[in-house]
């Protein structure tokens, strides 16, 4: 019945001349123009241009003229340093998915409990790192974790948990896990907010119906809340995956990819080739090729998750 009403109100589009339709919606198109211009100028054009530049041996000055075909792509794909950086980037994402995502969900469920006292204070405390500048966080952690006079090492050695200071950011074995830990802590608050928003989309009457049907809290969580979260969880998973894969500022502020490139991620790798002042001339063409390959790989990994996620989405969709 409702659909019949809707059809009745909407005149058939096929019978209306296109010009009249354009006139009717002229202002709508005018208002779309700024958005289209901004999107085209700041998203679409750089994307297309970077692909184009990737086919040139270009130092970023003037018009690229030295066409080298796929050479930059071959060099990127054959570079051990690029793949090391790629796996480091992937490690950030993997940690975000297996540690940050579930942990944030658990805390979100706790903080979504209306009976919990001071829950807004807890939410604020957990969200504070998100709004703190990453560079500042990097510098503060570098000071805290320093093996000489760093508070953490002083505490560890004073308590007796460590015989000698731990070289958190200076060791090739501990630097990457340390940075991943900081990144998880930094991003935890926003993931928590995603989960809280998702939890608050579940209608209260469904909870009440489950209680009336005799479900306890655990059963309500297992059979009501979690299945209803699945569609939104997929979106959250993709958001967290994308965010953590592009970690740059934390690494740049703490280790610049060191020691010995053990924390080098793809964004710092690209940055080095495009902007390193110690290069005689920047290699923008090569940096663009690295960016393009990284973008493709990211897309590929995201698409690989699609069949699995689609199945889960269908299973969880109400």
């Amino acid at each position, binding site marked *: 019945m409702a659909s019949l009403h809707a059809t009745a109100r909407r005149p058939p589009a096929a019978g209306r001349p296109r010009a009249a339709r354009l006139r009717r919606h002229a202002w709508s198109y005018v208002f779309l123009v700024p958005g289209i211009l901004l999107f085209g100028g700041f998203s679409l054009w750089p994307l297309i241009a970077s692909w184009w530049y990737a086919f040139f041996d270009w130092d970023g*000055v003037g018009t690229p003229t030295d066409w080298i075909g796929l050479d930059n792509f071959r060099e990127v794909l054959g570079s051990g340093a690029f793949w090391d950086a790629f796996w480091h980037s992937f490690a950030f994402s993997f940690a975000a998915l297996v540690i940050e995502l579930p942990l944030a969900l658990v805390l979100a469920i706790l903080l979504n409990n209306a009976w919990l006292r001071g829950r807004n204070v807890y939410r604020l405390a957990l969200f504070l790192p998100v709004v703190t500048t990453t560079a500042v966080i990097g510098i503060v952690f570098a000071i805290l974790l320093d093996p000489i006079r760093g508070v953490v090492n002083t505490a560890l050695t004073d308590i007796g948990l460590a015989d000698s200071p731990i070289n958190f*950011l*200076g060791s*090739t074995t501990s630097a990457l896990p340390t940075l991943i830990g900081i990144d998880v802590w930094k991003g935890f608050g926003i993931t928590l907010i995603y989960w809280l928003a998702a939890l608050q989309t579940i209608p209260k009457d469904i909870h009440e119906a489950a209680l009336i049907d005799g479900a306890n809290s655990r059963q309500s969580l297992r059979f009501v809340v979690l299945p209803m979260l699945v569609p939104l969880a997929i979106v959250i998973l993709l958001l967290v995956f994308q965010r953590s894969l592009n970690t740059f500022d934390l690494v740049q502020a703490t280790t610049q990819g060191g020691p010995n490139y053990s924390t080098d991620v793809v964004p710092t790798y690209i940055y080095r080739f495009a902007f390193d*002042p110690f290069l*005689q001339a920047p290699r923008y063409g090569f940096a663009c090729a690295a960016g393009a390959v990284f973008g493709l790989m990211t897309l590929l990994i995201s698409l690989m998750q699609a069949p699995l996620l689609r199945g889960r989405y269908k299973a969880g969709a109400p």
Partner: protein
Amino acid sequence: MSRTRRTLRWAAAASAVALTATGCNLVGSSEDDSGNDDASGENVTITVALVPDPPGASEFYRAQFDQFEEENPGITVEVVENPSDQQLNAVELMFQQGDPPDVFRAQADGFDRMYERGWTHSLEEFVTDEFIDRFPEGTMNPATSGLHRDGELYTLPLVTGKWDVRVLIYNEAVLRENGFDAPPETWGELEEMATTITQNGGGSVFGYAPTDGKAIAVEILAQTAAPSSVVSDGIDFRTGQPATASPGLVEAVELHRRMQANGAMVTGWESWDGARAFTEFAAGTIAMYPSAPWHVAEVRKLNPEIEMGIAPLPVPDDGRGGYTPMKQSFQPIWSMSAETENPEQSWAVMDFLASEDFHRAYYEEFGTLTAVESAWEDQAAENPDQSAILAAAEEGMRLVPNPILTGGGGAAILQARAQRPELKHTDAAVDAIINNKPFQPIAEALDAQIQAFLDGEVAAGTGTLDDITFPDWDPLENFTPEQ
């Protein structure tokens, strides 16, 4: 609908009136706001792009330019500051956007990056005998000054060539407490002293730091053991052949590898930036480290009371194999834009930046030994730190061949080599030190890559091996261009 349209039209009209009233439009002001009123004989604005380095330079340059403006009422100096590591990219962007600075700072290799693009203005037309006489005799020879290209002066210096010296900075009190009454003269003594001091330091005082996270100390010490071209480019200029695996360079890495494995080096150096070494030294945490001389003034600023000694670099136990290179009299710093509309006024600013008054002020502010030596030589002679730096320069530096200055194929090959930083020993050396790997096979693999690179460049016609070969060069003597 009609009401909405009317409202929007009113809003558009009001906006147009407001924009007109404030003199704004989307394509720029109709008035010439470039500050270039030269034709009318009024004030000219000269833009100077520089870096706020060392700390306090922003205020210093502004005060100096204020003084310049007082003495030159027709010229206003507008300063554009960029962080040191972004200066070249920022200046390049300014050129590309058609709004280049009139005068800009492009240091060392950065100058050639600008010169090759035709962005620098020859200074030959402005130079007078009085100008040349400001600098020490012979230093403005076009073949060796470092400021000339194709025989013409293109850039001006800030610091003396002696400032490229490298020294060993040491804490006299720490050495004394550990039973040492003098700094090490050999690498063996350095290793022994560093190990002892770290063992006695109880985790709060360490014997040695390799200067920064790239272990730049390896390069500094290796210059006393191998020809400088081996250390800087992996090529022995005596033969034109790859030489990363030469004994002096390999032993410099092995020295650091042993000290790292034995725990003689400061903990956490692997993530140090360039400022950390002098900060920790000033705090009394490290006893010795090889350093650039500008660290000395920074240490004094942080801790004026510290018992700091400055010594020439220790040499290999079996004797010296090279010196800290003096590739040219000066490093390029100040250049004039080829696109400046006011070359006369730009030169006036550059002339001021190369004046004795400016160099004296810079020396007094930062303790840097500037290019105009008459500005500071009397004061430096009475300053123990600066006297020690000058003595170390006298003892530890020698002129070396520099294909970049001769231009042609040699310069092109070295510039292409600079585009391939992975061919240099630096990253491989850090890997060997941190992960305790023998460096000899790594160096031999690097040499194979350098050989392939050289073969490729020669085949491509970039240059010939003769362009980078100086068979008569003795690394233990001063090189003369005639060789």
